[in-house]
């Protein structure tokens, strides 16, 4: 027997919507087996992972808090991936955005600066992320260097740069030698939406970005250009679209969104700059982008779902002693299934007896 792919004459909308759901179902089956292998009750574990966090208000807020950076980063990445350029360094752009915005918070710390500080920090964060993302984009456009490798290398550089800042020049003198900046002032902090809660203004910003991305992709020429350049580069050249300019644009936008997510995370839930501000948001966002089928609304839903796995994973570690790495395994397996199921949208898959092969071997 062998696998044969037959290109579908037209795209099936039903399968396009069903494929992420099939992928999630297959992932859950695989997880059930993994839990059993680890000697944990699969039912109890799946419950802790996926149902428990949905049952109390605190966890629900926490899901929204975790989904905020994921959705924002993934929206930017989806623009790149639609245009067939591969920014995989969003993690680094997130960190640099956090650093750029924190600079102002550190500089104004303890002064009587007014309410302009937070907006200025958000702008700086987005700017920092965009400029950092432009490094691999310019290397690609000017010199033809693979953006995949350069953008990834810059993640390590950003991580070390942040580490240097919080251990060196920006360390809180009253922080007992911990590698962290001083706690940000109230004017440099993203306000929470519900008094005493965790949900913050960032969630609203993320929703606004979802709306903006929908308009960009669905209603503007630029959005159309992005999709044509990605799907049919030859047609795009004949159409006179400037592919290089689009590489710069998609990288800058995705970097800006990742940077914005970074400064919101630092000025919001965390409240100061320190190493380890991201549990891999930049990489998980890649999964969010694909699970959401590179569609803004899909990404919103996918972001909430993956945020759920972060929260569920933490709870499973606490209550069932399930290793935290299982969440990463889960995310990796999910991405595999998502990609495999995406193939169903383009192709019909048939199993053929092997002896048929001779008939069209040399075509």
């Amino acid at each position, binding site marked *: 027997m062998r696998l044969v792919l037959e290109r579908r004459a037209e795209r099936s909308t039903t399968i396009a919507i069903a494929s992420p759901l099939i992928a999630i179902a297959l992932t859950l089956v695989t997880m059930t087996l993994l839990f059993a292998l680890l000697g944990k009750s699969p039912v109890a574990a799946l419950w802790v992972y996926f149902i428990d966090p949905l049952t109390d208000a605190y966890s629900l807020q926490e899901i929204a808090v975790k989904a905020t950076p994921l959705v924002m980063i993934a929206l930017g990445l989806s623009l790149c991936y639609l245009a067939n350029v591969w920014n995989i360094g969003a993690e680094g752009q997130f960190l640099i955005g956090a650093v750029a915005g924190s600079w102002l918070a550190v500089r104004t710390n303890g002064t009587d600066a007014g309410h302009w500080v937070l907006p200025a920090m958000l702008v700086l964060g987005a700017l920092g992320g965009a400029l950092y993302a432009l490094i691999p984009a310019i290397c690609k456009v000017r010199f033809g*260097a*693979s953006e995949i490798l350069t953008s990834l290398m810059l993640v390590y550089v950003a991580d070390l*740069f942040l*580490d240097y800042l919080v*251990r060196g020049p920006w360390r809180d003198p009253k922080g007992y030698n911990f590698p962290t900046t001083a706690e940000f002032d109230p004017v440099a902090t993203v306000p929470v939406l519900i008094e005493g809660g965790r949900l913050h203004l960032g969630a609203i910003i993320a929703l606004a970005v979802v709306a903006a991305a929908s308009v960009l992709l669905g209603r503007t020429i630029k959005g159309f250009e992005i999709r044509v350049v990605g799907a049919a580069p030859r047609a795009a050249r004949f159409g006179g679209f400037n592919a290089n300019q689009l590489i710069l644009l998609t990288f800058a936008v995705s970097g800006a969104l990742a940077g914005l997510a970074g400064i919101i995370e630092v000025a919001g839930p965390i409240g100061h700059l320190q190493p380890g501000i991201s549990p891999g948001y930049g*990489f998980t966002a890649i999964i969010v982008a694909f699970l959401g089928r590179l569609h803004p609304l899909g990404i919103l839903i996918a972001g909430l779902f993956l945020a759920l796995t972060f929260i569920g994973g933490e709870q499973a570690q606490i209550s069932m002693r399930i*290793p935290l*790495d299982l969440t990463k395994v889960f995310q990796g397996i999910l991405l595999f299934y998502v990609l495999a199921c995406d193939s169903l949208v383009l192709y019909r898959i048939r199993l053929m007896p092997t002896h048929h092969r001779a008939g069209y*071997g040399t075509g």
Partner: protein
Amino acid sequence: MGLAEAIILAVVTASTPLLLAAAGELVVERAGVLNLGVEGMMIMGAACGFAGAYLTGSTLIGALCGIAAGMALSAIFALLTLGLAVNQVATGLALTILGIGLSGLIGAGFVGEKIVPAPQLHLPLLSNLPFAGRILFAQDAFVYLSLALIAAMWWFIYRTRWGLVLRAVGDNHASAHALGYPVLTIRTCAVLFGGACAGLGGAYLPLAYTPFFIPGMTAGRGWIALALVVFASWLPGRLVWGAYLFGAVSILQLHAQGAGLGIPSQLMSALPYLATIMVLVVISRARGSARSAAPASLGMVFVPDR
């Protein structure tokens, strides 16, 4: 042992995992497939290699476990990208994410344990030669293996019929298919070979480089191996000095940190990554007009028509 000797020995040890992983990826890319999952396969090789060596007390079995782990991951990659025609970039990323998670899961029980590192093979008499003796004739088995592997690869790619077929498949899969060569089978073999090499390269880290396992101990070496293939312009010979150059950068920055030159240690630690970016830019720019030594079908999906 003098300082220079010690540094050169350290450079060789630091370069070997890069060389092994990059050698595998070079064959994969020569077949027209871009597997970005090297980092994931390496870290799985490290975790499984350490587990195997710790449980059996044998470096050889550890190495074999590492190879098996790398191949298992690469088999998933082959199934998706070759069997189901999925985008290779995205699948490679998935492989890395999965590998990092799985290795953490497998390695968790072994963190803090130690093993006996792979012994250095002293060639009688030759290794007693002053200076060169220690460097050339007293390395561990992996070092010799990695160099032998490069030689064998060169011979295979340029001197055998199947090497020619491999290059044909990578340069124009449609023509190779039309000539009756089993494109997908050849690519699958190449991908599995790449997985084996990456797994071995990863296993080298806990088996010979440091005698213990730390989660995430590959620290981006898989990505540097990918960059090395570009640096080498897909030529096996150039891979050797590329790998040793990178090994040298990473060792020299450690020594510079130790010497305390007043440069922030983080800047020194970032050097290998910055060097990779610089090299990619310079190489890509130099190649510019001679439009790329890359295999022409690299990264493209191939679905045989029926």
